[in-house]
């Protein structure tokens, strides 16, 4: 081994000793983000886009934060570990921004107008944020009305179907007949029958959410181990206790599977309903902007939609963890 290498090693060790541990991925991510910023700022655009300098400066700010993080994060403890876990993602994000920027705005390799550069999306947020916020509000209102009413009705119907043989006799065939029909098939008739488009959209979202919740709750309640009822009955439990304190908690894992299915169905129906009849909402925004070939706006809205939907899914996971702490491993 040569003197020079050993020298370098020694210097590295002493530097590390001076500064303490460094979050290597953070430093690399900072470099990647800086690279993306350089590509954005230095290379000229093939076609001019708005908000190019703003995007570059956001990248620079990100790079600066990551550089500070490279030193600070190892001293943060628990939170730091979570950030360190996502280090490779942060690096990849910088690289993707650089490549995306290069292939769209700078080189024009990807066909216009279908592929927008990152600053194109940013520009939409800068210019159109008011309308977007409005659309988010409309979408959330429609979804929460539709989903919550559908899920609540579905849950009670499911409990009744699973518990009462008489209710199941009349209800189960109906549910089996209507259940497999996609909720969107009811779109024309519901827009015709219900007084407002909002009511019709609400009904469709509710239907799409209610049916999986009802089916899974019913099967959950019906398949509760009979030994649980025997135990509760010998301990003096009456019907009310048997339903709400035995059948429902025992069926809760099934109910949550139903709720997760309901989430995905309701998102699908929500967008379709908004595209067809609504005057606002993210689905409407997507359809409207596609009509004008404003693909940056479409992508910008898609990003928001992805964040909202995955956020709601995450929220349901948290809710399930709270309600069912006894379940070590989830069913999903």
């Amino acid at each position: 081994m040569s003197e020079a290498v050993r020298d370098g090693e020694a210097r590295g060790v002493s530097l590390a000793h001076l500064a303490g541990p460094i979050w290597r991925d953070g430093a690399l991510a900072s470099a990647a983000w800086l690279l993306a910023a350089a590509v954005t700022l230095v290379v000229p655009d093939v076609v001019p886009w708005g908000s190019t300098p703003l995007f570059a400066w956001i990248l620079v700010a990100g790079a600066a934060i990551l550089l500070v993080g490279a030193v600070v994060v190892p001293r943060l403890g628990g939170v730091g570990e979570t950030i360190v876990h996502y280090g490779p993602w942060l690096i990849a994000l910088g690289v993707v921004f650089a490549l995306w920027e290069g292939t769209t705005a700078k080189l024009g390799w990807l066909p216009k107008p279908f592929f927008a550069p990152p600053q194109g999306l940013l520009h939409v947020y800068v210019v159109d944020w008011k309308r977007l916020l409005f659309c988010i509000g409309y979408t959330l209102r429609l979804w929460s009305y539709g989903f919550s009413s559908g899920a609540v009705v579905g849950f009670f119907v499911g409990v009744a179907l699973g518990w009462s043989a008489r209710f199941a006799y009349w209800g189960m065939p109906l549910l089996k007949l209507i259940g497999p029909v996609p909720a969107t098939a009811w779109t024309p008739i519901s827009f015709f029958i219900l007084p407002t488009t909002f009511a019709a959209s609400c009904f469709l979202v509710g239907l799409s959410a209610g049916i999986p919740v009802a089916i899974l709750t019913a099967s959950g309640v019906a398949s509760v181990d009979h030994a649980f009822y025997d135990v509760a009955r010998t301990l003096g439990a009456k019907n009310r206790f048997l339903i709400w304190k035995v059948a429902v908690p025992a069926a809760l894992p099934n109910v949550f599977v139903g709720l997760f299915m309901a989430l995905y169905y309701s998102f699908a129906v929500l967008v379709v309903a908004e595209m067809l009849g609504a005057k606002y909402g993210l689905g409407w925004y997507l359809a409207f902007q596609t009509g004008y070939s404003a693909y940056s706006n479409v992508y910008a809205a898609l990003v928001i939609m992805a964040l909202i939907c995955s956020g709601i899914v995450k929220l349901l996971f948290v809710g399930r963890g709270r309600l069912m702490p006894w379940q070590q491993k989830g069913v999903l």
Partner: protein
Amino acid sequence: MSAALQTEAEAPRHSIALEINAVSHQFELHGGRLPVLDAINLRLAPGEFVALLGPSGCGKSTLLRLVAGLEPPSAGEVLADGQRITGPDPSRILVFQDPTLFPWRTVRKNVAIGLEARGLLRTHQARIDNALALVRLERFADAYPHQLSGGMAQRAAIARALVNDPQLLLLDEPFGKLDSLTRLSMQNELLALWQKVGFTALMVTHDVEEALLLSDRVIVLSDRPARIVAEFVVDKPQPRRRDDPDLVQLRQTVLATLGPIRD
């Protein structure tokens, strides 16, 4: 403090007399009828500990279900202190072979089920702690069932029964699924509880030694439909020793009555 005193005053008696008069029972199966019990007559004095032995599937568990009031007998009657049993009642509690703890409830909340179902939770909190202490599970009150060992889970199930101050404890092979060491210590614990609390006990088991160690009387049932074929009084004071020559002798006799082992 006052709640504890009240509890004492409310339940001065801890045992009941059980009378099974000419009880026959049959299951409806695929249109046909399967007789499981054939004219069973059995009397338990208050505070007595009786063990039921018999070939597996002979209907012992069914008899316990009838006494618990979970099902009405096809013929005959079951009387608790002279009163005909028509439904389940917290004074007669069935402990199953599986602990069947509710997995969504902590040990404490499992033990509380009987009080909660009868609306006594507020006034009788102290009983839960007493029951947990009786089975030495105080430190696991906030654990969930999946965190317990088999023996601990069965102890929790017994605490869940005891919290209701049962006057008749029905045990359906309560230690059948435990490993042999845990089973030995659980037998001693059950014996200690019975001596301390004084309930009447009717236990189904297929372990002859267990029956002889714990009970005052051993009833041997025939194959399905079950009839009583023999009755042995175990006239030995507690604590009994497993290697007591009289008990070893009795064990041979009981095994002979049970007939050749077919498997």
